[in-house]
């Protein structure tokens, strides 16, 4: 099927899945669909059950925290090729932030709930996925810490 081949190709080449065994790639492809969001749509909101993760194909998504008197405060913008959401893999499987589309966005949505179940049965797969997602998380934490440094400010956060 054209659609599935398209997804399968992308999965095979994407850094997060690179090197996974063929049977795992096929399983993951079977859990994936193409999705599309309009500008302003929310992929998920803080507190939502995190049962889906995404690879953005086109467009940009703002990861933000809602601060009541300030509205949504962006902490990061995720774009083409980026992975969105790791909360699907770690309990309590709850979205920690809001994800709002800043533009028309096309992405591949992966059924995290299904994959979680598979990981529970097949720990080899689980370990592989955890390693890959952990790498993303580490990158984000490092980036966040550098952001915290407020390197452009005066050092004394005011």
């Amino acid at each position, binding site marked *: 099927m054209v659609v599935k081949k398209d997804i399968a190709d992308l999965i095979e080449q994407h850094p997060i899945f690179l090197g996974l065994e063929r049977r795992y790639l096929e399983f993951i492809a079977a859990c994936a669909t193409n999705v599309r969001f309009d500008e302003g749509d929310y992929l998920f909101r803080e*507190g939502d059950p995190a049962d889906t993760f995404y690879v953005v194909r086109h467009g940009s998504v703002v990861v933000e*925290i*809602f*601060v009541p008197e300030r509205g949504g405060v962006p902490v990061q913008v995720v774009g083409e090729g980026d992975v969105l959401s790791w909360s699907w893999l770690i309990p309590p499987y709850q979205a920690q932030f809001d994800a709002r589309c800043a533009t028309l966005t096309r992405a591949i949505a992966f059924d995290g709930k299904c994959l979680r179940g598979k990981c529970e049965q097949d720990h080899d797969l689980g370990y592989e996925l955890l390693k890959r997602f952990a790498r993303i998380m580490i990158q984000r934490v490092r980036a966040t810490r550098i952001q*915290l440094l*407020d390197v452009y400010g005066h*050092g*004394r956060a005011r």
Partner: protein
Amino acid sequence: MAELAERSDRAFPAFLRPHTVTGVERETADTVTLELVPVGSGRPAFAAGQFNMLYAFGVGEAAISISGDPTRAGPLVHTVRAVGSVSSALCSLRRGDVVGVRGPFGTPWPVEEAAGCDVVLVAGGIGLAPLRPTLYELLARRSRFGRVSVLYGTRTPADLLYRGELRQWRGRFDLDVEVTVDHAAAEHFDNVGVVTRLIPRAAFDPDETVAMVCGPEVMMRFSVRELLVCGVPAERIFVSLERSMRCGVGLCGHCQLGPRFVCKDGPVFRWSEIAPLLEIREL
């Protein structure tokens, strides 16, 4: 003064009780603790968590939590952070100046409900001010409560409130005090990181704990989530909310959160009751 008492034949915002500033302590660059003594009759009793409307002459009123000791007689104590015109005017007061006070208003922290339980106080920034009276109440009858933890987070070491007291509290064996800052800059500081990180490390029995959380709403939201994950039931978690308050007595309509008036149904709310309203954005 008798004549002022008589003038409460008008709406409450038409009434104020003059207080003289008898003490000004600069806590940080933008925060001041004021000691106020009423002109004339004694100060009314208050419960931890309540607030007064403080009036700065010619500038206006602001709702400020009481930060003093409810168990002892003495001046009325308020810790004010300069964030607007009224609070800035209050922060510029000097000894001998006179301000207006209306109150106390609002629902208190559930100190009685916590009897027999472990107590966790989670404070973010200026949020320590409305919780300090609670700590005084807990310490005044210490044996009625289990383990008491104070978890306090603020932006930088320069923003710490009540430094002297923090040292004293840390020295007590019947109190666990953990302080953390978001940014430590050059100064060495024991704990750097958000206050939520302190929660899983605190010693409390989640089945028998009452938690009271105060600070910016985002901080409260994330702290409560941490407490829930640790197993504290939503019915035993309390937060103190802040909304635009103009009259303090439920007549001006400004402080509404859905059907609740934060000035009289709050500011202290039980999390299980208020969470559904807080989930609705821009309610």
